[in-house]
């Protein structure tokens, strides 16, 4: 019985090496400064715009809103090893909102799981970078996502496996707020509390919008934090674009015992590009060449 192999990841990219300088050995638990992470966040936003612009399709809005969340996790909080993406003791990051795939790919590339140059192949035939994530072909991708609502259950399973094995890895699941319309999310929320799992952290990218408009108009989630509390979760609310607040919240979550934690990250859809911010048109629409140019200028 053997697990399917995903192929060896290439060596750490130059940009990641800069950040990795102060890190010992292979374990990629970075102590990047906030300034370095802010620079990385900007870089990731530039990748997102460039990738989706080149592909001619994709989801910029929900990728841009989650940038700081992934930056904090991959460059500060998580214990992971780009040279060994199947390392058994790695912290797991599960992207449940699979349409933010461009952000995940850019982050993995900057960590060294993929060559940065490969980002230009997004959504093309035979690319490892599918429109939505595919765990069978992309190193570092934990779950095949895109069908919303499935990641928290998957993350709970990964966390239960760790507890059974006596491993101390942690599992981070990124959900969209619109995604929380799905009943399965609440099935998983109930089960996570029932199984008293504290290695599981859900992060909700609470940008307030979904395809058809504002959450409150399409399907009102309020009172959102109370819902999670009622399901037995520790709730932490942060500004999802404030790296300090995010890092502090992940630290607090580690101290919570006997129950799971959700970090509700208040964000702005399309964050960083003026004409995409809070604009539902850019949920699933690629910027044209001129828009790419303007966006990149704004992100200099």
């Amino acid at each position, binding site marked *: *019985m*053997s697990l399917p192999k995903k192929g060896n990841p290439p060596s750490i990219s130059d940009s990641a090496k800069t950040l990795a300088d102060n890190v010992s050995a292979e374990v990629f638990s970075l102590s990047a400064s906030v300034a370095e992470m802010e620079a990385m966040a900007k870089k990731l936003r530039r990748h997102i715009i460039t990738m989706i612009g080149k592909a001619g399709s994709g989801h910029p809005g929900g990728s841009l809103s989650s940038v700081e969340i992934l930056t904090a996790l991959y460059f500060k909080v998580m214990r992971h090893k780009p040279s060994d993406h199947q390392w058994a003791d790695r912290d797991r990051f599960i992207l449940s909102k699979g349409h933010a795939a461009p952000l995940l790919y850019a982050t993995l590339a900057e960590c060294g799981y993929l060559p940065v140059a490969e980002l230009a192949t997004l959504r093309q035939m035979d690319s490892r970078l599918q429109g939505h994530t*595919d765990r069978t072909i992309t190193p570092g991708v934990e779950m095949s996502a895109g069908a919303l609502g499935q990641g928290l259950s998957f993350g*709970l399973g*990964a966390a239960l496996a760790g507890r059974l094995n006596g491993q101390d890895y942690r599992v981070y699941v990124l959900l969209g707020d619109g995604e929380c319309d799905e009943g399965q999310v609440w*099935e998983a929320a109930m089960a996570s509390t029932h199984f008293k799992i504290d290695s599981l952290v859900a992060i909700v990218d609470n940008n307030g919008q979904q395809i058809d408009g504002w959450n409150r108009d399409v399907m009102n989630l309020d009172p959102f934090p109370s819902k999670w509390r009622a399901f037995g979760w520790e709730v932490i609310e942060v500004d999802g674009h404030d790296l300090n607040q995010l890092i502090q919240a992940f630290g607090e979550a580690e101290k919570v015992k006997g129950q799971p934690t959700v970090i509700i990250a208040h964000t702005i859809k399309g964050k960083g590009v003026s004409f995409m911010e809070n604009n539902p048109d850019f949920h699933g629409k690629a910027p044209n060449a001129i828009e790419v140019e303007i966006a990149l200028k704004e992100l200099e």
Partner: protein
Amino acid sequence: METVSVREAYGRTLLELGMENPDIVVLDADLSRSTMTRFFARQFPERFFDCGIAEQNMVGVAAGLAASGKTPFASTFAVFVPGRCFDQVRMSIAQPQLNVKLVTSHGGISVGEDGTSHQSIEDLALIGSLPGFNVIVPADAIETVQAVKAAAESYGPFYIRLCRPKVAPVFGEDYRFKLGKAATMKQGGDATIIAIGLMVKEALEAAQNLEREGIYCRVLNMSTLKPIDEEAIIKAAAETGAIVTAEEHLEHGGLGSAVARVVSQNQPVPMVLVALKDTYAKSGKPAELLERYGLTAKDIEQGVRSAIKRK
């Protein structure tokens, strides 16, 4: 002949496997008394996860456990998995080809009195449509034990469908199940009956009755519905010239469809599908239902006569 519960055979096998392999974990959706996962649950409470009446989450949790090296068996009724959570089975298990074993009970209409909502007649079409899924429908308790063990030993997604009623054994203790291979239950040259599940017993009875009319049927137990034994089907078509399939499922997308796909493209011969005809069944005793909806030895016999006539 004494009948034996295939569900109990599953439960006991799971317990045995649990003792041998610490990576085996079991999930259920509040039906462990019916699916018989309770034997495992009692012995290994720390490795058993009752997910409550929430099948979508159960399937996702099983996938997550598998992705971190466990071998999960997840059980409920066949109407609920895959019926209730087809997308979860598709994206969380089938697409990534994760090592999850879905073993469901109460397949078919022999569920009986509980009626339409609990009679799974579409599950084989749903699960059989998923690329790379292994699908097994055992014919009796002896085959169930071996199929469950085979699933535990082979990496990848499996679906094993069991029925509610106890069934008479069709195999002896010396039977050896081989994944992807049909078992020849009886030789014959006039026609071939290909059956799964409790229809295998009906097929054998039909073959015996037809001998009195001078019609000699080959009987194949096609317990591995996927990957199906194409070689055995083509050989049967070539050597007997007529095929009748028998299953407790709609004729759309089940055994009959799978066999017809092979026959039509390789060795076209007349076929008759003994299956549910585009309808839901109702409450009733299992035997009454099987008779009402045309799933008995008599119906198979009629099918054989009709197929032979068209040779």
